[in-house]
């Protein structure tokens, strides 16, 4: 039985400036996802999280190309599919929630139109049934008096409501996987929590798998089963949430954890030194090495390979290996 979704050594590059510049936005990403599972994807802005999301549904901008790798949904190869076939997968089997609730609804169409679309195209719902379905979905995301509100236009709703509608749209096609790309970044903190709870509830009810992209480790702790930490287009560390917080393996993960403000201490906040890397001019060796406090000679020359550690954790760092050899 293959995993629900498997991404294997995915590479996608942007070819900017008439092909003279290559930006390696995704550079060998692998992970897998089981039904009902929540996979968190964490990293700084611009590390390739969003590109990964778009690559999975094959909706990268025209200047980007998937160079190599595999994406499998229940064993089917998505990269081999035509755009028409992909369309049957988007919204129907893999749904997506975007960052900005204010911007992700078409301002000129009613809520009803927009929520109904996936059900219309993928589930062939029509007429009264479609209406019923939309009403159910809106109730599911806790929109009060859905019958009345679904005639409204997006600008008549608040931010939190809109994001819940986006959630309803994601559910409308009855997907197996929902990719949520920083769904709460633009929401107030109180509404964030409500929304996360809602997502959790919905996931529990429908058994859908969730890819949760965020830069907020707090949310990761609340939402996810498994976490991948991305840096410069690569997943530098992947393990369970518990493992990540208690036993981070990659110096970058550690740095991220250190930079979370902690209650009760007066220590100055930890800041990762240096700048996020320029993806078109990555340093030799490990991409993180210029900012890494434990960088060694080897890091500057050789790019770390994926290290499979115990408890199913993986990392791309020479450090565990080095520790093992020095200790041993």
């Amino acid at each position, binding site marked *: 039985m293959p995993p629900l979704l498997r991404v294997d050594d995915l590479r996608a590059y*942007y070819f900017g400036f008439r092909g*003279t510049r290559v930006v390696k936005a995704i550079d060998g990403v692998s992970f897998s996802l089981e039904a009902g599972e929540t996979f968190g994807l964490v990293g700084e802005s*611009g590390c390739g999280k969003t590109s990964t999301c778009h690559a999975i549904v094959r909706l990268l*901008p025209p200047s980007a190309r998937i160079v190599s790798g595999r994406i499998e949904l229940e064993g089917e190869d998505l990269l081999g599919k035509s755009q028409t076939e992909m369309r049957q997968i988007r919204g129907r089997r893999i749904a997506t929630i975007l960052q900005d609730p204010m911007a992700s609804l078409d301002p000129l169409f009613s809520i009803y139109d927009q929520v109904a679309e996936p059900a219309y195209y993928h589930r062939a719902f029509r007429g009264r049934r479609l209406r019923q379905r939309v009403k159910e979905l809106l109730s599911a995301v806790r929109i009060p008096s859905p019958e009345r509100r679904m005639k409204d236009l997006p600008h008549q709703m608040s931010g939190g409501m809109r994001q819940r509608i986006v959630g309803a749209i994601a559910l409308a096609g009855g997907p197996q996987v929902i990719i949520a790309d920083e769904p709460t970044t633009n929401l107030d903190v109180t509404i964030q929590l409500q929304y996360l709870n809602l997502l959790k509830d919905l996931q529990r009810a429908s058994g859908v798998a969730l890819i949760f992209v965020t830069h907020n480790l707090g949310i990761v702790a609340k939402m996810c089963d498994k976490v991948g930490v991305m840096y410069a287009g690569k997943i530098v560390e992947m393990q369970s949430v518990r493992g990540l917080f208690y036993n981070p393996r990659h110096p970058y993960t550690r740095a991220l954890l250190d930079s979370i403000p902690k209650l009760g201490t007066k220590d100055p906040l930890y800041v990762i030194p240096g700048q996020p890397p*320029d993806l078109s001019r990555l340093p030799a060796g490990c991409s993180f090495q210029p900012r890494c406090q434990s960088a060694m000679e080897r890091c500057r020359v050789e790019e770390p390979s994926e290290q499979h550690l115990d408890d199913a954790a993986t990392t791309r760092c020479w450090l565990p290996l080095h520790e093992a050899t020095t200790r041993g």
Partner: protein
Amino acid sequence: MATILGRATEIGGVSRAARRSYSWVREIPLVPLLLVTVLVLAAVLAPVLAPHSHLDPVKPTPGQCQAKYGMADCPYVDNMPPFWFSQGTFATPLGTDYLGRDLLSRLMYGARISLVVALTGTLFAGAIGTLLGVLAGYMGKWWDQIIMRVTDAWLTLPSLVFAILLSSVRGPGVWNIVLILALVFWSRYSRAVRGEVLALREREFVRLAEINGVGKLKIIRRHLIPNVMNTVMVLFSLQVGVAVIIEASLSFLGVGVPPPEPSWGLMMAQERESLMQGKWWLAVFPGICITMLVLSANMLGDWLRVRLDPQLRNR
């Protein structure tokens, strides 16, 4: 939002620093740059390069007089065709006009007028408009109300009509057209700049300067004007083309540059009849010159717009 490139980086996540480090020189569109260079060189070096006077007829050879008029001697030979016609000569490569003046030389001197008029006119318009826009946006209140209402009224006046009107106040002349262009086009800058300043006013560095008691004039000079320059430059590059066309149209309608000074629009107007006689080159070459200049200005403007300010693409 975003150019194609912008969208790519947004999703793919190229850092700002990375974007800035690209060599922008390589991205300048070559063709328009080349065209503009040629025209500018022709204009600047006209006295050196032009084969003949742009105001006096080319002295004909007796043979030409005999062939054209059956006269032994004549002051000039009009309407010589370009060199590729059988009667054409290389002495006047593009032929001569109705007064026997060399077309090529007149085109080169015409480039001077078009460029000088369009550039200085647009420059003055930009200066006035920017200043008023900054004042309106930053000083607010009555300044804003008065300046913006006048700007609105000004924008309602169609530019060419306004220009014709002004030209009948001022009479013909190169510098009068510069003045006219400045008076007509400042309003486009003040509108855009004001919007920009409204946003800038709320930014931290301006707030900070205000809190620290920096004078208003200094804030305008040090913080606001430098920050609206992108917008102004983009508008400038796009307005230059319009200015060239307005100058040509005014000259075409006979209220622009006074003859015998050669302006492209005027040359076209003067040779309208020749066009009907099949001497197309007399009107078509100046037309092509205008088109080339405006086209290059527009292309450079487009490029600059993408580079400097994606927000302005709709203007």
